[in-house]
């Protein structure tokens, strides 16, 4: 029971980070039909920026908000200056460009803050101690049904929960949200009702990168250190989450993220010999393959995901 509760909380807290990044993936995919492979690296860059703000003595709470602003700018500028002009050429070009950004951002992080480039699994990377948003000393835990649950984990779940509720409020009850949904549903018609689709797409990329920044900071807190491979595995899990939930469903991204977090932690915990730490990522792989085989549109996606 204690172990189960612990794994449940661990799974949910990691899963909520996957959900955030998956939300970013889905927001961008709905708007433009592109999968942004640099999603995780944009988040990592913002995370390092937050770390830097912390080093300069800015309180972590303010630093996070500033980091999200940096993330928003990064995402918005990327859309306007790079993705929009290139998407007129071909989807292939967009794909290559996001891979290029992935590589470039990862290198920039390493060049500024040090560490081995590229997403390895952290081998040999310089590890940076990261300031946590929540109390995270060995004594900071609460006991529920005999299980010692870290306050950190509960805080993460709560924070992501609040943010998700806020995001859905934006989607469903604001002008921007209405515009985003309209653009996702029918870009041409969105123009015809007077929506500035360009600005909406810019805002989508910005929003995706901003929540990614929060996801990065939160995940760095759980992991207690930051290295250049940090967000890469998160991106993989988040992609699996988006596939599971349906690539064009924000609700699906959240459910998918939490599920992947749970499945992966439970599997690693209850089948240490079969899954263990090594094959955690294998879970993501199997989920993606399984979904593609049996339900290509995911749990909540629309069936617009076409067969060839």
């Amino acid at each position: 029971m204690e172990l189960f509760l612990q794994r449940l909380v661990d799974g949910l807290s990691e899963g909520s980070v996957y959900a955030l990044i998956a939300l970013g993936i889905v927001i961008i995919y709905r708007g433009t039909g592109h999968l942004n492979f640099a999603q995780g690296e944009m988040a990592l860059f913002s995370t390092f920026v937050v770390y830097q703000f912390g080093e300069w003595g800015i309180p972590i709470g303010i630093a996070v908000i500033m980091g999200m602003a940096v993330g928003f700018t990064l995402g918005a500028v990327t859309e306007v200056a790079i993705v929009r002009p290139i998407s007129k050429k071909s989807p292939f070009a967009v794909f290559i460009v996001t891979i290029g950004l992935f590589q470039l951002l990862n290198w920039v992080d390493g060049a500024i803050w040090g560490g081995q480039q590229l997403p390895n699994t952290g081998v040999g990377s310089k590890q940076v101690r990261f300031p946590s948003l929540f109390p995270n000393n060995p004594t900071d835990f609460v006991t529920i049904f005999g299980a010692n649950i870290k306050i950190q984990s509960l805080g993460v779940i709560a924070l992501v929960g609040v943010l998700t509720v806020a995001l859905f409020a934006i989607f469903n009850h604001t002008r921007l949200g209405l515009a985003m949904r309209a653009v996702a549903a029918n870009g041409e018609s969105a123009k015809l009702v007077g929506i500035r689709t360009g600005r909406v797409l810019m805002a989508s990329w910005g929003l995706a990168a901003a929540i990614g920044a929060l996801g990065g900071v939160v995940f760095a807190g759980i992991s207690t250190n930051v290295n250049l491979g940090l967000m890469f595995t998160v991106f993989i899990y988040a992609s699996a989450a988006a596939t599971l939930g349906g690539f064009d469903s924000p609700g699906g991204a959240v459910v998918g993220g939490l599920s992947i977090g749970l499945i992966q932690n439970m599997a690693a915990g209850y089948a240490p010999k079969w899954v263990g730490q090594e094959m955690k990522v294998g879970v993501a792989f199997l989920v993606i393959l399984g979904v593609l085989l049996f339900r290509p549109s995911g749990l909540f996606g629309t069936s617009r995901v076409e067969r060839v």
Partner: protein
Amino acid sequence: MTSQTTLLNTRFLTAGYGPVTVLHGIDIEVNEGEIVVVLGANGAGKTTLMRAISGTIPRTGNIEFEGRSIKKDSTDAIVRAGIVQVPQGRGTFPELSVADNLLAGAYVRRDGAKAVADDIAKWYSVFPRLQERSTQRAGSLSGGEQQMLAIARALMSRPKLLLCDEPSMGLAPLITRELFNVIGQLNKEEGLSVLLVEQNANLAMHIASRVYLLETGVIVASGSAAELSADDSIRKAYLGF
């Protein structure tokens, strides 16, 4: 006729897709309070004309709206100026509810939630079927209902000029008639100006103040509905009766 103020006025409007030019210098006029119908067969360039006016494709030549050139305006600016296009076929937002579709139609309005809610109620009374389905996803509506939704959505922005792209397309004759009646009614009661492109001449002629014939990107004839119906050769070639 000349006493009426000109609302929309295109001079040598040319447009196309990439290297292909579809419209070769179109001159049309829509006066305030008129329903102007552009008739043309498949491939004549009807949809292109709509798109060129609403600014969703690049165009050359001049377009004036209320005496001001909108040639360089983007689509959203044109919508804010008061021209709204009802796109061909299912131009709704299929994943959004009917109510949200209407809300999106009011996107450019700045006169507050109350006024928008009043308008939604008004169009619900004109199209009662939409009210019954207000919480359903637009994609689940029938073709006729979607077309009504598209028109209601366009009207939500309180346009001065409504562009209708083949509203009869894919609809049963009865529903088409109902639709044209509604458009005619709106024109009489609200003074709404309409520019409508159609293939289905018979119904459109009934409500038209003036008619243009469009053939492979060129206007080949124009006049009142009565004048055109009276011309034997035109009637046989284009109107089929």
